[in-house]
Every structure is written in C-alpha cells, then in structure tokens.
C-alpha cells in the first residue's frame, strides 16, 4: 500500500494540494531537518500548503490546546 502511495506522491498523481500528500511531505522534511516533529508547526505548514482557510476552523481547538499547554509553539 505504501508503495502505491509513495509512487502517487512522487509522480504527482494525487490531486493538487491533497492534504494527505502534503502532510506526508511536510512530515518528511521536518523529520529530515530536526529528527523529531512538532505538531504545531506540522499542522501549520500542511494547512498553508494545502488550504489555508481550514486554519480558521482550527483556531478554536488550537486555542483550547494551547491553554492546556498541550501544544507549544516551539519544539521541546
């Protein structure tokens, strides 16, 4: 299955801005750069590259999480 998904992403067969593929790519780059990933910046980058408007919908949840210090802006 991953083989097919990999091929689809490489060949650009998936719809443009499909978040699934964007997420995979952003995840990959983040781990390559830093070894670990941070959920906050991962989601932010994914959204910016696929459909920035969904960020609006996330504000509410994000704020709750931030208040509970379940996410933080910098990597720990």
């Amino acid at each position, binding site marked *: 299955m991953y083989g097919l*998904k990999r091929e689809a992403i490489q060949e650009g067969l998936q719809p443009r801005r499909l*978040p699934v593929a964007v*997420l995979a*790519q952003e995840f990959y780059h983040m781990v390559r750069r830093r070894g670990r990933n941070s959920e906050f910046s991962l989601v932010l980058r994914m959204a910016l590259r696929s459909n920035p408007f969904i960020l609006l919908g996330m504000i*509410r*949840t994000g704020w709750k999480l931030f208040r*509970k210090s*379940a996410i933080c802006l910098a990597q720990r």
Partner: protein
Amino acid sequence: MSAYSYFPGCSLRGTGAAYEESLLALFHVLGLSLTELEDWNCCGATSYMSIDEGSAFLLSARNLALAHKAKCRDVVAPCSACYLVLRKTQDYAVRYPAIGAHVGKSLAAANLPALDGVRVRHPLEVLYNDVGADRIHQLVKRPWRGGPVACYYGCQIVRPYHEVDRDCNPTRMDELLNAAGVPTVEYALKTKCCGGSLTGTMHEIGVRLNYVLLKEAVRKRAQAIVTVCPLCQYNLDACQAEIRRGTGERYDLPILYFTQALGWVLGADPEALGFSRSISGQKSIRQWFSTATEEAKAYV
C-alpha cells in the same frame, strides 16, 4: 525492579503530554524503571514511509539500536503508531533480507549495534504480562468514583502483530481495569479506526469516524472512553465540540489514557496524571478525580 527503555515519540511531547505524565507516574507507583532513550528521533510514522521507505526503516532502526547500545533492550513505545512502526521495522529487518542488509549496513556505518534481542513493547502489554492483573488488584489504593468506561484499543496495537492482544476482540485493557475496580462496558467498536491523521487532512471523514465511536460508547452507557494512543485520545477529545455543533447531540465524555485511570486507582498523585489537559468532559473529570483526595486517604 524491571527496567525499560522509554521511547516517548513526538506526540507525547505535544498533544499527548498527559499520556507521558501519567505513564511516568504509573510506572513510578508500580516500581518500574523507565529510562528515556538518549537522543531518540522520530519513528517516521506512516508519513515518512509514504515518501522514502528506505530511510523510514533507518529512522526506527536507529532508535532500536540506541536501546541495544544502552543495554536495556525492552523498548516501551506508548504511542500506538510509534509502537507499530518500530515493531514493523524489527520484523521486516528479519523477514526481508534486503531491508535487513540495508538497515544493518547503515547502523554499522553509524557505529551502532544491530537490533538483536531488542523487544518493542507497548505499556499495555508490559502491565498485562510483566505486572499482571492480580498484582494490579492487590495494589489498588483508591476507589473508582467514575462511571463505567469503554475500552478503546484502536487499530495499530492489535494489527497485524498480536503481541499486545488479539486482533478481533482484545480484552486485556478491560481485564486490567476490571482488576483495578474500574467497570467497563462491552464495546463493539474497540478496534475501529479513530481516523488517525484524517481529522487533520480529510476533516469531515475523520470527524464522522469519531462520531460513530462516541455514539456507540454512549449507547452502551459508557461515561468515558479509555485509550492507549495519543492520536486516538486527541481525536475523540477534540472532535466532541464540533460533533455537538454539527449534530446537536450532547457529547461531553472524558477521553482518558488507561495510564491515567490506572494511575488514579493505584494512588499516583492526581496532579501528576494530567487530567486538566483534557478538553472534553472536564465536568466529570473534576467530579471523579479532583475532590476525592481526602476520601482516598480515608479509604487507605
């Protein structure tokens, strides 16, 4: 005292912070030593696998090799995704000689030992096998003051590997919680998918999956859902507000980690269990866990 290497994974340093806190508190109460792997890295998860398979195996293999180097070969990975990815790497390295050779060569180049003898463990299975339901029962310090819970195992710890529990009808979390005096309900959806990262990428589908899970739990009269995975917990927890808005049905269930529930019953410091980090069900949480401190003392 049994000693374990601890692989937190990225989630436990983010949305899953409560999992890490409660896990450490619970292991402390049980007298199990958990040593964090030095300089661990991301397991790669499924996303990395979708871009570059070869390096994906190396990412996890590096962590396992670190455990070997640290001479503490039982690697406890609390996040279901981390557990599965690490376990898969270990399996594939043996099953497919090409992957094994690739991994072996790269580890050797980085002056890291091979993966021999490293075991990937999930804390649920550690508690079930190394501690046991009987011992948990003996160690109960506080009564469970909450309602019955639905044990939700998710997909990754039971498939395709069966070391944590059976794939179709896992029961070990139920057994442990029952031994600790926590009532559980028969929950048919215990291994259905929570949507994983779909809540972020294909939002509607992800929320729909969580809706089904919550609806069935409520129908079976569960008053909370207990999970073993940071992503499952996050999805079920964070989706409830949106489901309320979308359907008009009232959902406000606490979504707990099994380590939180057991930690509470076994007498860990409630402050250290991260209850306050939950988004939904805070009312129940306050009722069940916060005011009980004095009563618990009386009970002991």
